[in-house]
């Protein structure tokens, strides 16, 4: 997959658990899991904004492009 989600790494750096992030962002843990595992087809700007706000990071820290 070309787009890699680095949420796990950032969560570990921030010493935060998935359910805490899900609660802060306002999405279900199931949806967060879909995002983390790279199964998501799209991410809303509002979700991305909330995640960046909760983790105090930039979108580029979460999303990474890797050529195939």
């Amino acid at each position, binding site marked *: 997959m070309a787009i890699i989600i680095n949420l796990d790494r950032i969560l570990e750096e921030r010493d935060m658990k998935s359910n805490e992030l899900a609660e802060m962002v306002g999405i279900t843990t199931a949806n967060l899991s879909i995002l983390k595992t790279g199964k998501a*087809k799209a*991410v809303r700007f509002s979700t991305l904004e909330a995640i960046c706000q909760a983790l105090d990071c930039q979108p580029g820290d979460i999303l990474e492009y890797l050529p195939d």
Partner: protein
Amino acid sequence: MKNDSIKILKGLLYVSLALSLFTALVSLGFAITYGFFNTYDLNTDIELLFPITSNTTAVVQFLYSMLLYLGISLIVWLLLKIVASFQNNKFFTKYQIAGFNLLGKLIIWLSIIDSFGSFFMRIIFRSRLELKLEISTFWLFIAIGAFFIVLSKIFEKAYQLKNDSDLTI
């Protein structure tokens, strides 16, 4: 679709299913009666595709009629299953896509089989060659079958869109 309208539709389909199964059963009964009990009567008023002129014509016609009604029962039963799957607002599932596709194909095949069956039975039993090019029930059923196939394609597209929507976080 509201659950009430689904219930009404299901009720109507149950009645249709019961009627078509009953007709198939009656046809089978007549076929057995004519086939095994030699009750052929020249004064009979029963006429299906052609007048009953012997026990063989009667048995063949009633068996043919039974098979057609069994096919219709299968179609109604399948439609019933699809309508039932709409309950609890479950739309655009793989089951519905496959169901609509199968339903359309069954309707088209049954119409073609019926058309050919009647054509050949007319040749055999009446020694008459008939070709109908009018807008008949045959084309109507072909159109209905094609409609269900198109509906299945639409549901397939909607299923993909729904999946994409569900996977948008």
